[in-house]
């Protein structure tokens, strides 16, 4: 023990992606002190630059596996591994944060959120999410998960004068903290049963657990999953999602729906596949049940959204993201039934990459419409095509991708890849549930898509239009909604927002043309 070096060696190139993101956050925080008020928008571009830089720092790592923060004694386990899985998720996280940043630049201005703090919190959360997939011990995983979540609580509550924003932040916070406590209890049990926090050692340890500790180890394994299932918004850990998304500033909701989920599923993958491999039968079945519950609950709740209710657009996206989380879980569940789980979970990565691009795109268009219609009802999207054809076409494309219909080919193929993992794993019932859910989800995605291209209601029928839009009691719609017709076209669109929509659209179209770009993750192992 004394012969080994005192300090772990560090491969700085390997840890560059999260490190650069965190460093950019610090730079922004310090820079804010010295920037005069009118120059504050620069901070956003500094953040974007930092994220681009972090993305570029992934390139030198492409050649293969790098490990760092390895144990200096007793075993070869490392705390940080930059393999292909890590890189794929880090790309997803950094890309997602980048699009969020583009979305946020004008939102920070208009909502008068404190700029320096906003960008710092966003970047530190992204740094945590980028660290998460690389972590290979439970302590780092827990800390990384908290680094992802804690700044997010503050981000959700950042619209400080807003009742909804603070309420959303408190709900998110309490749910998350409780889930963390449950997860830590599970971690402590796993630690007791295996004597280690390193995933490799846990995997070896679970193979020959003391028979008296087997039940404890099982419970520990399942409870550990809870914290990550919470981030992924798996039912029954999903309740915070609709409320938080609606209350949060829109870019933050977009961020949570993509990067938050990425943190959730990457943690689940790392823990289940690398750590709890010997207990595949336990978590496989657990995740299969969660997946079925999640997609069903998410989709049927989305189906029941009233288009004329306030915030129905964001709420629908929130429920749809719950439903999509169910699809993300399917390959994970299938991995529990497969001899080579490393090769199955690639479908989740592929699906997540598709989902990230199109979901952020959908949120970007929602942000665009939200500028003219603060209530962001789905009925506000009626006839968007005649006012902003590009935005309407983009949103239509994103929704079709989410639904898995052509021309959103990538959505279809990603769903097929996910579906196939379930079939191959012999999870026939899960495949059936998924197929039914895909059909159910068609309704609300298509409904919204069609609304984009519908004719505008005549102004004199505005009251009737509100009732027709799906109200239960036919209550009068505030006159503002009629007055605001056409207002979407009147407001100028900020360049960053356009850039975000165009980027997401470009990604979606490119992926639809060449789905193999992401679907290759669905074959072969990433670890």
């Amino acid at each position, binding site marked *: 023990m004394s012969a*080994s070096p*005192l*300090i*772990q060696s*560090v491969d700085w190139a390997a840890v560059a992606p999260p490190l650069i993101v*965190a460093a950019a*956050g610090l730079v922004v*925080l310090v820079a804010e002190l010295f920037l005069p*008020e009118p120059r*504050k928008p620069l901070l956003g571009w500094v953040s974007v630059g930092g994220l681009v830089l972090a993305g570029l720092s992934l390139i030198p790592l492409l050649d293969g596996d790098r490990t760092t*923060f390895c*144990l*200096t004694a007793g075993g070869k386990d490392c*705390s*940080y591994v930059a393999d292909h899985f890590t890189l794929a998720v880090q790309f997803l996280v950094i890309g997602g944060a980048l699009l969020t940043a583009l979305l946020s630049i004008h939102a920070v201005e208009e909502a*008068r959120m*404190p*700029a320096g*703090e906003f960008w*710092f*919190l966003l970047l*530190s*959360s992204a*740094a*945590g999410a980028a*660290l998460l997939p690389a*972590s290979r*011990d439970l*302590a*780092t995983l*827990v*800390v*990384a998960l*908290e*680094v992802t979540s*804690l*700044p997010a*609580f*503050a981000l959700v*509550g*950042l619209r*400080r*004068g807003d009742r909804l924003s603070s309420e959303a*932040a408190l709900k998110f916070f309490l749910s998350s903290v409780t889930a963390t406590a449950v997860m830590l209890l599970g971690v402590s049990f796993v630690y*007791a049963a295996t004597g280690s926090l390193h995933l490799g050692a846990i995997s070896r340890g679970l193979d020959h657990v*003391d028979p*008296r*500790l087997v*039940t*404890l180890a099982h*419970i520990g394994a399942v409870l550990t999953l809870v914290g990550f299932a919470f981030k992924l918004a798996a039912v029954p850990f999903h309740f915070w999602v609709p409320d938080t998304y609606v209350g949060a500033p829109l870019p933050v909701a977009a961020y949570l729906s993509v990067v938050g989920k990425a943190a959730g599923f990457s943690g689940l993958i790392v823990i289940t596949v690398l750590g709890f491999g010997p207990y595949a039968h336990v978590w496989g079945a657990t995740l299969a049940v969660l997946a079925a519950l999640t997609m069903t609950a998410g989709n049927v709740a989305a189906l029941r959204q009233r288009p004329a209710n306030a915030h129905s657009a964001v709420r629908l996206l929130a429920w749809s993201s719950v439903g999509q989380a169910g699809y993300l879980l399917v390959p994970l569940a299938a991995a529990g039934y497969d001899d080579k789980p490393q090769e199955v979970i690639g479908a989740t990565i592929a699906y997540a990459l598709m989902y990230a691009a199109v979901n952020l795109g959908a949120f970007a268009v929602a942000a665009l419409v939200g500028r003219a219609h603060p209530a962001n009802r789905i009925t506000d999207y009626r006839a968007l095509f005649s006012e902003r054809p590009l935005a309407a076409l983009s949103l239509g494309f994103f929704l079709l991708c989410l639904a898995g219909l052509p021309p959103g080919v990538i959505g279809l193929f990603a769903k097929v890849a996910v579906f196939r993992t379930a079939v191959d794993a012999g999870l026939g019932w899960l495949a059936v549930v998924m197929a039914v859910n895909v059909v159910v989800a068609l309704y609300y995605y298509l409904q919204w898509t069609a609304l984009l291209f519908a004719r505008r209601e005549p102004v004199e029928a505005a009251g009737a239009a509100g009732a027709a839009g799906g109200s239960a009691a036919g209550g009068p719609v505030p006159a503002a909604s009629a007055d605001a017709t056409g207002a979407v076209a009147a407001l100028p669109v900020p360049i960053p927002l356009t850039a975000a929509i165009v980027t997401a659209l470009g990604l979606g179209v490119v992926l639809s043309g060449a789905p193999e770009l992401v679907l290759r993750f669905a074959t072969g192992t990433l670890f």
Partner: protein
Amino acid sequence: MSLAAAASQGFLSPSGVEIAFVLVGIATLGAAVVSVTTKQLVHAALWLVVALGGLAVEYLLLTAEFIAWVQVLIYVGSVVVLLLFGLMLTKAPIGRSPDADSGNRWAALAVAVAAAATLVTVVIDAFRSTWLDLDGAVQGSAEVTGISLFRHWVLPFEALSVLLLAALVGAIVLSRINRGRER
């Protein structure tokens, strides 16, 4: 490891450390229960201090000195003070408040009892004959813990610094009264 030794140690012939641990444990648990049931909000915070202090004693009995001191410093010293501040700032009533518990009480009790039954059953089942040997080298002195922290747990430690900074910034930005930029 020390499982074999457990067989020789019956539950009916407790050692001194065990007696102390159980007594302090009962006090801790009692303080915790009072803390989550009392109708006087400020008392709840004070009972929490007792419970957390009791835990610090338990850490000492388990030879984890460093953790015990950290517990006293961070929890008793600052967290509870923060919580008390919070209670004051939100104008929590001093004295009994009849509505300290929400309507969710019975559901809460059901879930808590179910969880307790499960956890206790499992834990007893797992550890009923496991012996914890406290006589060897000290496990948790400041030196031992510090060395292991900096030798094996550098990465989470570094990440934690980001976390603390983010929490600090987040807390400041949220609790700052709206002023500054928009004025």
